[in-house]
């Protein structure tokens, strides 16, 4: 899938985000290090998956790439241009090429807007379709693409079910014909039978519009179904990154192994050890390998930062076991 002669569409280099958390009046402000030096490439027309548990920084990474949050360190290159240093007009122009679909289909629409104005607003902002007629046609086309009746235009968001709203969210994101889309847990809030509809729609849209996806999810089975390459995040860092087949067939990092083992599989009893303990606070991440307090293979050297290595099969891994 990832042809080597192509240039990556998105390059993320040493991305960092530190949130300043207010303490009380007399307390020092604390640093919450949500994303700590994340690097990866996304090839054109690839679906790149970010997987991890809550608080691992996967959603923050998605927002940093789109510059919805400004990084405190590192760069994000889209077609070779650094988004992190862009402002104003330049950034706005770049934004048209990258869009986002949100997790919560209920909260991602202005309750006072009808579907027509929600989907057409990006076109108005960028002056894409000049007349109202053109816009109406465009919106009707987009709604038809995502499998909705164009009559939906006149209705308000609350008249739709979660699955339908997610379709509208996809239509809105497609309105500017972006190249790249960040999908932040797009099916997590939906019922199983509706999830499958939306996943299939996302795949259809990808081939129809030639899209590149960053797919963020905690659900390993969905990640595995839709992604080409996957990065596993833990406490703001990527600890393993590989082709989907490689990773799911043989996860190497102890955390990836534990994560895969913990996910319940249909028709199988659980195998393997259950990971003990909980994710430490990102305000005071453990020294060295962030996973070592929970790792069954932890050794003395794990208190130092593990080197990120490229293995012969092309995967990246940050673990002393493979150093």
């Amino acid at each position, binding site marked *: 899938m990832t042809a080597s002669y192509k240039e990556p569409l998105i390059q993320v280099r040493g991305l960092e985000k530190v949130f300043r958390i*207010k*303490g*009380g*009046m*007399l*307390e020092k402000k604390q640093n919450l290090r949500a994303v700590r030096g994340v690097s990866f490439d996304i090839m054109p027309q690839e679906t790149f998956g970010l997987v991890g548990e809550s608080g691992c920084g996967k959603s923050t990474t998605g927002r940093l790439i789109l510059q919805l949050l400004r990084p405190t360190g590192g760069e994000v290159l889209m077609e070779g241009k650094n988004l992190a240093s862009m402002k104003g007009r330049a950034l706005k122009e770049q934004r048209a090429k990258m869009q986002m679909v949100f997790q919560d289909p209920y909260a991602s629409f202005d309750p006072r807007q009808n579907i027509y104005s929600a989907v057409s607003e990006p076109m108005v902002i960028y002056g894409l379709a000049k007349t109202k007629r053109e816009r109406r046609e465009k919106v009707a086309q987009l709604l038809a693409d995502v499998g909705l009746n164009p009559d939906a235009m006149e209705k308000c968001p609350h008249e739709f079910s979660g699955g339908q709203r997610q379709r509208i969210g996809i239509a809105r994101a497609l309105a500017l014909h972006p190249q790249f889309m960040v999908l932040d847990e797009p099916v997590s809030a939906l019922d199983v039978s509706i999830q499958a509809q939306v996943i299939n729609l996302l795949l259809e849209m990808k081939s129809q519009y030639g899209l590149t996806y960053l797919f963020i999810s905690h659900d390993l089975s969905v990640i595995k179904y839709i992604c080409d390459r996957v990065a596993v995040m833990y406490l703001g860092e990527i600890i393993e990154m590989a082709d989907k087949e490689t990773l799911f067939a043989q996860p190497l990092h102890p955390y990836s192994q534990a994560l895969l083992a913990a996910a319940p599989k249909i028709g199988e009893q659980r195998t393997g050890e259950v990971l003990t303990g909980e994710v430490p606070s990102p305000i005071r991440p453990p020294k060295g390998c962030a996973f070592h307090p929970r790792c069954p293979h932890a050794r003395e050297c794990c208190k130092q930062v593990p080197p990120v290595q490229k293995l012969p099969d092309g995967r990246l891994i940050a673990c002393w076991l493979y150093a």
Partner: protein
Amino acid sequence: MLRYIIKRVLSMIPSLILTSIMVFLMVHLIPGDPAITMLGDSATEESIEQMREEMGLNQPLVNQYFIWMGKVVHGDLGDSIFQNKSVMATIADRAETSVLLGVMAMILIVLISLPIGIIAAVKVNTWLDQGISSLAMFLASVPAFWLGLNLMLLFSVKLGWLPTSGFPSVFRSGDWSNLRYLILPSISIALPNTALIIRMTRSSMLDVIKEDYVRTARSKGLTENAVYIKHVFRNSLIAVVSSLGFVFASLISGTVVTESVFSLPGVGQLLVSSIMLRDYPVIQGVILIIALVFMIINLLVDISYAKIDPRIRYTSAK
């Protein structure tokens, strides 16, 4: 908890300073010479000159503020123009009435509104609940002073059960039965203010009833009484206490007006008459004191709020 209190007290300092600046500037914002403002129109040339010197009027405004603040910290708020007393002494004479009146009104508010609010919540959507809600809305629409006038007409003038006006000091005479002079005034302050607490108690209890932890409490097999008292009411107090700030503000306003209605020798009436007479040192002093009292009350409200809700204590003042 102690940490929280200290933090909260320290966080009061900026507001305190800003408020004092505002009260200080008051005299300077009034058109005309501040020294004349402070002494009244009948002052002599020399005394004006002396006052200028004292206030440091030929110095920069910042210095004047510090001079004034220095005096205030030592309890010197200047002298009244019309009464032959210091402002501090004038206010001290009047404090008893206002404090007693306020306390009595507050006790009445709590005693009336909490039980009624609880009943309305427990009997939600019955005729009783609707009756209480209507009554609360009616009370909220009644001006305290008008209520006072009517109560006076009925109970003092017509029936002669209670004295119409005035208040002989309890502390100086040692006669607690003098409190009867404050019964009608405190009722007329309290009743309009019960409305907010009744409504807050009711609506926050109804909100809390929907919470998951109330379902948990029921799933434990607790009796309905235990669920209502320990879980629903206890948690709804958080919202009720947070609205106490409003009630106290309204209570102080109510006190000022009601003192005028019943001719009570309180701080509020002092303020009204001082404004009429343009006795600016007294006006300034009274406003400063009331603002300070109001701030301390709000501090106490916040502390009790933290006492009720452990989440506040730990995440500390926002």
